């Protein structure tokens, strides 16, 4: 067992500028849902830069706006103020290749798993124009190769309701990856899985990342997951969220599940835990203050 490197950089200091080009940039972006008296602030003014090929894990108390950041980057939500730039362009105007997986596997129930996974190829160029020609050959092979990689070999012709939750989530990961995205947005994709399946999928995801180095933004509740997968961890405050801490994780890769029980790793987990605990207490106090005022 190799010895882990110390995580001396995990210090709350600003992350030094990287030489790689910026893949995602939020500058002074905030999101408010609704208007007037019923306005709900979901994300406080936030700035965040993610370099190309980084693996960033976003952690924080529930309802803090982690998913909102993801939805901003994916273009599902527009910023109320500020700018979101992805791949050098403003989000709305972009036709960049992005793979996204939600906590809910959301497979389309009328399609087989294979066709569900091939869906991005039907939509996104350059695959789109070749879809009719290649869907029965090259594209199908591609889908099945991915299925095999996540341990679902031979399940391509099943329908989503014939698969268990864990299997669907594996398929979901395949669908996020099939169009070889340069950017992967993952919204608690392993949240509903049992511990062992989750750890297995961590390793699969890590392998994929090491092989292709896409930019990954992972939203998670699981601190072990963040520390296992992330090259960088951003801790968010309670709603309306903002980034409290942004630090690098320098454990050597490929990381193993056994490593997550070593002292350095546990110490990192505890540090993260403390941050979120503080954020939760602060928000509770703020609410209490509001109540008495």
């Amino acid at each position, binding site marked *: 067992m190799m010895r882990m490197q110390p995580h001396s950089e995990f210090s709350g200091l600003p992350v030094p500028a990287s030489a790689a080009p910026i893949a995602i940039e939020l500058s002074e972006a905030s999101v408010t849902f609704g208007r007037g008296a019923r306005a709900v602030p979901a994300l406080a003014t936030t700035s965040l830069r993610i370099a190309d090929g980084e693996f960033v894990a976003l952690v924080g108390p529930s309802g803090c706006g982690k998913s909102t950041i993801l939805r901003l980057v994916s273009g599902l939500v527009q910023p109320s103020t500020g700018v979101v730039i992805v791949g050098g362009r403003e989000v709305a105007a972009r036709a960049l290749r992005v793979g996204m997986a939600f906590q809910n596997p*959301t497979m389309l129930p*009328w399609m087989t798993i294979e066709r569900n996974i091939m869906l991005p190829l039907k939509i996104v160029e350059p695959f789109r124009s070749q879809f009719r020609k290649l869907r029965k050959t090259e594209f199908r092979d591609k889908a099945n190769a991915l299925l095999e990689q996540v341990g679902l070999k031979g399940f391509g012709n099943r329908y989503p309701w014939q698969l268990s939750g864990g299997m669907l989530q594996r398929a979901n990961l395949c669908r996020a990856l099939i169009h070889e995205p340069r950017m992967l947005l993952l919204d608690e994709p392993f949240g509903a899985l049992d511990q062992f399946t989750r750890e297995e999928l961590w390793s699969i995801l890590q392998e994929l990342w090491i092989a292709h180095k896409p930019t990954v933004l992972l939203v998670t509740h699981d601190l072990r997951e963040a520390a296992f997968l992330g090259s960088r961890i951003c801790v968010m405050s309670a709603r309306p969220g903002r980034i409290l801490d942004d630090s690098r994780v320098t454990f050597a890769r490929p990381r193993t599940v056994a490593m997550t029980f070593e002292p350095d790793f546990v110490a990192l987990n505890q540090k993260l835990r403390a941050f979120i605990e503080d954020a939760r207490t602060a928000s509770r106090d703020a609410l209490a203050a509001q109540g008495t005022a």
Partner: protein
Amino acid sequence: MPDLDYRQKAWSAALIVLFFVAWELFCLMTGMSDLVLPRPSQVFVTLFEKFPILWPHILQTLATTMIGFVLGVGLGVVLGAVIGVSKTAYDTAYPLLVGFSSKPKIAVVPIFVLWFGAGTVPAILTSIAISIFPVVVNVSTGLATTEPELEDVLRTLKAKKFDILWNVGLPRAMPYFFASLKVAVTLAFVGTVLAETVASNRGIGNMMMIASSTFNVPLVFAGLFVLATLGICLYVGFSLTEKHFTGWAHRKSEIVTV
């Protein structure tokens, strides 16, 4: 499962036979005049004997119904899609739709006759008018209730609105669509026959009017039988198509075999 299926079909057939036998016996025992209620055997004999006369009327009614039905469904899908894709359009247009669909369709026949004269055109229009609304209402509801999560899958890929409609909205609305087809096809018959009885010189509806005015009651009933048979055939046809296209929505609980 297939055993049960066949048994159920056998019971359905037996029930139909039983119905006719009971009817026959009822007429025989009460000595019912065939001017009031002819025996089924009489009706079948009439049907058989008068078939050469009935045939053109059957074709006329069937053709009119199918034209009206196809146009009604086509328009219904387009209109339903337009209304269903936007929540605002759906909420705005729904009261008007309900108003249109709840008016008694017989009331529009004289208007169509006034506009287009007696004949095939009012019959087609009536069957369109009567079959379009279930389709519009169902397709728009199917689209409007599509889970946003399903659409998000494509939206994150920057799919165009049409791609989302084509790949998510419409397939999702298919069970609703087929349910409405089964209603629409029987309603299209109602529309055609209605218009034929009021203002036409051909078709089953017209034939039944003439037969009843000459007290040829067995022939009236023969017309009814023909209509029932046509209705059942089309209904079954669409049920089978429905099973083929929307099996995913009608699945029974199956055990996952891993």
